[in-house]
């Protein structure tokens, strides 16, 4: 139905390599800043640099022009790249604490400006788990259940914008759920964040089933088998990514000393005090 010749023609042009160049630049900047921090009193964990590099590698694989061209034709390929861009790469980047690094690297005036930006109403709004969930999964419903996806195959700018959206939304979601290691503007309980993660898994697996059952996205010229294979990859791959996020969240929780560990259930602390009284 669609002719993708323009994509072939554009392949190999400088513009296609721009995302990859940006990722390399951002990664070099992170590593340079992290290296400078190592010699300061507070230091900088090497693991964070490893996580950042890992996130960049995952992202680089996803935006490399040959793979992007493949994903342009193949819906399963698109799903695989979506998983890398929207879930796995952002999770690794969040674990690298880039905002903390930025704040400690910038000179005082710049740092204050960034801190003010983080406290702004806009950032507070988009970094709330519920807004991040809507941006992320809501964006997926809009993309796959409307003609937007088929339009994005023909429009290069729209195509880029959608990928940037999912990278940013994925980052916000992972950060909002973990609320670590960069300090979150919100102080929400572990239970609440697990609840949002629950809603995220439920809505995205529902979307996978709807796409499988009703052959969305439509108007792309993909065969039914291909759409169903993509929907199944979204279902199981998305599961894997979200279970990974839950495991990371609870691992960070379990690493805290027992005394400073928030109870998973509200009654936990009350019970302890009751036991003490009984003794």
């Amino acid at each position, binding site marked *: 139905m669609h002719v993708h010749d323009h994509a072939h023609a554009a392949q190999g042009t400088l513009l296609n390599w721009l995302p990859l160049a940006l990722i390399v630049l951002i990664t070099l900047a992170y590593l340079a800043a992290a290296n400078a921090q190592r010699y300061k009193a507070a230091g900088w964990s090497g693991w964070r640099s490893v996580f950042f590099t890992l996130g960049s590698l995952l992202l680089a694989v996803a935006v490399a022009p040959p793979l992007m061209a493949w994903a342009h034709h193949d819906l399963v390929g698109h799903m695989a790249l979506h998983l890398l861009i929207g879930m796995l790469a952002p999770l690794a980047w969040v674990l690298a604490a880039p905002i903390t690094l930025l704040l400690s690297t910038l000179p005082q005036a710049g740092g204050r400006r960034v801190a003010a930006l983080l406290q702004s109403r806009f950032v507070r709004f988009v970094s709330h788990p519920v807004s991040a969930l809507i941006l992320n999964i809501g964006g997926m419903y809009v993309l796959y259940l409307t003609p937007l996806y088929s339009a994005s195959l023909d429009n290069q700018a729209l195509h880029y914008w959608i990928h940037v959206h999912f990278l940013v939304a994925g980052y916000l979601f992972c950060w909002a759920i973990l609320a670590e290691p960069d300090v979150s503007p919100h102080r929400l309980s572990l239970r609440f964040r*697990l609840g949002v*993660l*629950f*809603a*995220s*898994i*439920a*809505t995205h*697996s*529902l979307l996978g*089933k*709807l796409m*499988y*059952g009703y052959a969305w996205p439509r108007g792309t010229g993909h065969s039914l088998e291909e759409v*169903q294979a993509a929907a*199944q990859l979204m*279902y199981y791959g998305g*599961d894997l990514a*979200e*279970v990974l996020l*839950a*495991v990371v969240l*609870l*691992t960070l*929780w*379990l690493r805290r000393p*027992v005394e400073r*560990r928030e109870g*998973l*259930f509200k009654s*936990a602390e009350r*019970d302890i005090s009751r*036991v003490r009284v*009984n*003794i």
Partner: protein
Amino acid sequence: MANDPTSSNIDTKRSLWAALLLGIGVMAAVDEIVFHQLLQWHHFFDFGTPTFGIISDGLLHAFELLAIVIGVFMLLDLSQRKRLAIPWAKAGFFLGMGGFQLFDGLINHKILRLHQIRYGVDPLLYDVVWNGAAIVLLLVGVWFYRRAKRLGYR
């Protein structure tokens, strides 16, 4: 000692609940891996399923996945706090597995009609074996529960 019956720090109730969650998650994972992936008896999507069934399937699926993760971490947390009661956890694990299996056999397959156990055959025998297995698991759970109670420390 982590499982000293005389210690009043032991949390029998939470040990039971944590293992119950794990049991639910493990049984759901076994179902997913064995019947969907290996045998491919179940269908990923059954066009006979009512809309309400599809939506509740999403919720159930999310619950099962988180149950396994939260169950494991709750048990680790209890063990670090030296409050884990193993006999109660065993009871919870089997009650969770059996309970989920029975729920899957009755609610998911029959009431929500998400999918059948196997297609192109008379499902009656399969339903009997499925739910029979659930009842056996539940009975094992009840046996462990009574044993934990007899051991005391609650």
